[in-house]
């Protein structure tokens, strides 16, 4: 992950965001950017792909990128990730913000003159309604990311352009949490009556973003027209056409046949390799906050026994996993701990090596055969007989799930487990997984953001949305909350390390690899930067065509 050590005048990094506030950030933003960029050309239609039809348009109710990709050009968030530096935020609807000395009150000052696509002005009431909808949704509305605002104690609007958020405890990552690309701001006047009916914003989009949704034909096309009253100035493009294309090979063919200009989501490496050969095409792969973990269901025997879970970890050759499954599933990276590769909070080699199986990561000098002998000993000690049958639940249509499971099952046979893969369709898979009706599951967990609160909070707490293994551990949750509210960077770093060490010891989840998503675009498309986060930088305001 790209890290900036030096703050600039128009953006703020995670620490500065909280400690310095956002005053006067916007003033020099455009000047700084213009100095760096090529001169954009106005006009043209950008043609891009989506991975399929979005189930609906309600970004706040969804967890799928299919909806977020459609919503991103049309909506705004309070702040957004700086495309030039992933570790920093820049103003979006909030032109500046202040954080109180105790870190528990954040005041957002909204821009003047922002209007929704129907012409109504944005006010603080819209922001309060949207944030409350995330935190405490009305009856009939779901909120998959309510945990992001779990530390919020109250939200008020003391003035038409001022929003005050009171936190239960200081939270250095809060500004990034509230700026999650899914946390878009709705028009209260439009959303509230629809929410009261229980339908929400599923069938319409009413945002303040640089484009507004025009023609939408399910299965065919989603067309966005430039919104000339966008607060940041009209977008360079006249139009965006988004085509739902489910298959990666088909997406690659569409790019190669010049039917589309860009596709932002590839896992399959062979498709990207083909595209790299095409003249005038850029194909890249960037590390993404998505990890593939093996997750035991700890309520089921024998996985309630930590020795058995450690044995699973000892059995796995993570490098072999990447070499075989990686090209299909996009799994290309190792990490030293629970946070993404390159994180400042990565564990040292000595620290990670103390956990079973992680010493065979490249360059750490571990011995796989010795690990597997040790795994057999642990299984014997836990009373697990040779040839014990275990089942890996797998989703059949996604290589990151299916092929990962096949690879893991084969590896588990090396420690005397009779592992089989239970391949299910998406509907069955998610229901069985969510309700804990499995023994083992390999899950590719995609998270918007790579900060400790985002990754650890969603992925590794018992109250997070991804606790598929159904474990409960108050000490881990407490440790998470401690690091989350610690303002001193050095002390927080220590707490984050403690959390990782404590979690790894439990083997509630066993990390195999980190995913890097691919993207490919014609070289005529300019102004788009591939950020690690799949969801960020998709509003396409700055994108232009050099045709």
């Amino acid at each position: 992950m790209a890290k900036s050590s030096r703050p600039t005048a128009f953006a703020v990094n995670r620490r500065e965001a909280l400690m310095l506030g956002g005053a006067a950030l916007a003033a020099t933003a455009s000047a700084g950017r213009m100095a760096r960029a090529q001169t954009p050309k106005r006009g043209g239609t950008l043609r891009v792909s989506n991975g399929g039809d979005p189930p609906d348009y309600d970004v706040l109710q969804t967890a799928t990128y299919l909806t977020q990709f459609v919503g991103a050009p049309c909506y705004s968030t309070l702040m957004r990730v700086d495309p030039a530096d992933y570790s920093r935020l820049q103003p979006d609807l909030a032109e500046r913000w202040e954080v109180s000395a105790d870190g528990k009150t954040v005041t957002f000052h909204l821009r003047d003159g922002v209007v929704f696509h129907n012409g109504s002005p944005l006010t603080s009431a819209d922001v309060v309604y949207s944030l409350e909808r995330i935190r405490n949704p009305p009856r009939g509305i779901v909120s998959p990311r309510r945990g992001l605002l779990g530390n919020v104690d109250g939200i008020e609007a003391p003035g038409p352009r001022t929003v005050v958020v009171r936190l239960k405890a200081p939270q250095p990552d809060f500004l990034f949490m509230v700026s999650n690309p899914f946390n878009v701001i709705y028009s209260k006047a439009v959303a509230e009556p629809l929410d009261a009916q229980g339908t929400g914003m599923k069938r319409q989009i009413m945002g303040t973003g640089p484009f507004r949704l025009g023609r939408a034909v399910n299965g065919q096309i989603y067309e966005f027209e430039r919104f000339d009253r966008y607060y940041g100035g009209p977008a360079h493009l006249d139009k965006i056409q988004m085509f739902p294309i489910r298959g990666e090979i088909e997406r690659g063919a569409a790019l190669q046949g010049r039917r589309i200009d860009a596709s932002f989501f590839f896992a399959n490496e062979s498709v990207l390799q083909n595209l790299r050969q095409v003249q005038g095409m850029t194909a890249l792969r960037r590390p993404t906050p998505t990890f593939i973990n093996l997750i035991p269901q700890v309520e089921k025997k024998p996985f309630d026994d930590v020795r058995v879970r450690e044995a699973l970890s000892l059995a796995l050759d993570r490098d072999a996993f990447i070499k075989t499954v990686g090209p299909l599933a996009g799994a290309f990276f190792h990490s030293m701990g629970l946070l993404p590769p390159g994180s400042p909070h990565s564990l040292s080699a000595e620290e990670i090596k103390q956990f079973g199986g992680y010493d065979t990561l490249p360059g750490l000098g571990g011995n796989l055969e010795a690990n597997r002998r040790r795994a057999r000993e642990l299984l014997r000690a836990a009373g697990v007989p040779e040839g014990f049958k275990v089942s890996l639940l797998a989703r059949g249509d996604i290589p990151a799930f299916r092929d990962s499971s096949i690879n893991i099952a084969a590896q588990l046979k090396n420690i005397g487990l009779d592992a089989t893969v239970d391949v299910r369709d998406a509907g069955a898979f998610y229901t069985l997984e969510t309700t804990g009706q499995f023994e083992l599951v390999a899950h590719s967990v995609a998270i918007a953001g790579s900060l400790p609160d985002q990754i650890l909070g969603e992925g590794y707490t018992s109250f997070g949305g991804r606790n598929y293994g159904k474990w409960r551990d108050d000490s881990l949750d407490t440790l998470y909350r401690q690091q989350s509210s610690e303002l001193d960077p050095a002390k927080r770093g220590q707490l984050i390390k403690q959390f990782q060490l404590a979690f790894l010891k439990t083997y509630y989840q066993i990390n195999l690899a980190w995913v890097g998503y691919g993207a490919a675009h014609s070289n005529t498309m300019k102004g788009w930067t591939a950020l690690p986060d799949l969801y960020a930088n998709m509003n396409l305001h700055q994108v232009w065509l050099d045709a």
Partner: protein
Amino acid sequence: MFGYVVQRLLSGLATLFLVALMVFVIMRVLPGDAAVMMTGAGAGAISDAELAEVRARLGLDQPLPVQFVAWSAEIARLNLGTSLYTGNPVIEDVAQRFPFTLQIVVMAMLIAVFLGIPAGVLSARFAGSWFDQILRALSIGGLAAPSFWVGLLLILGLVYFFQWSAPLFWEPFWVSPLQSLSQLIWPAIAVGLRQLALIARMTRSIMLEVLGEDYIRTARAKGLAEGAVVIRHGLRNALMPVVTLIGFEFSALFGGLIVTEAVFNVPGLGQYVVNAILNRDYPAAQGIVLILAGIVVIGNLTVDLLYGWLDPRTRVRTAKA
């Protein structure tokens, strides 16, 4: 004839009722929960209470017989319900997608019939010749190659050699007939090749049998032209099983286009039904299966009626029975 049609219609309705019951039960027996899929497929912290509320809102907390009766009552009013996934009335979604599937099926069958029957007739007429040998080899290849594989080869071949890929916006036939035909010709070829091979083989086989019959020898002995013998006396009598096959394949193709539509990214019924099943979108999946079953029933009825037209003995036998 009227009694025959009524009898076939009643049996069709009974079939549809059984299909409705079966698809309803199968969708409920399948592991999976529409509420889970509607609330982010487990990707967020959704509580059990919220899931229960979603189920209650959808009526999924009711006993199965109650749900079935409610659904059947709506079907009787020709209301297929609202898709849980798209939020649109199922009938609207189907109406938007059906024309593309129908057009592919019709084009594929036209390709298959207009090339398959002549190929089969010629193959039989010149049995054992090099033409027959080549045709037999090709037809076996056509049968062996899955249509999605042919589709993928077509897509990759066209991209590789001509930098051409399938269009992404599909014009309905009534909006732009020529463009629509040129767009859907590729999936129609991918699908039609198998039907072509099937029809050619069936026609050849039946024609070989028919051409060996006494009345064919008699016709030739009368001095009739070979074309008249083969077409008027041979093909007419060989057509019955071929028509049966065409009718069956025509109906079956509606449900068999799933993968081909996905390969060419055609927004037809195939992709819709896959999404419906994967997302446990009960109204959509049930509705579309019912529609496909209706198409099969109508297809079979049409074939039965054609039987009656082609062979009056069929009508007589049915009337006596």
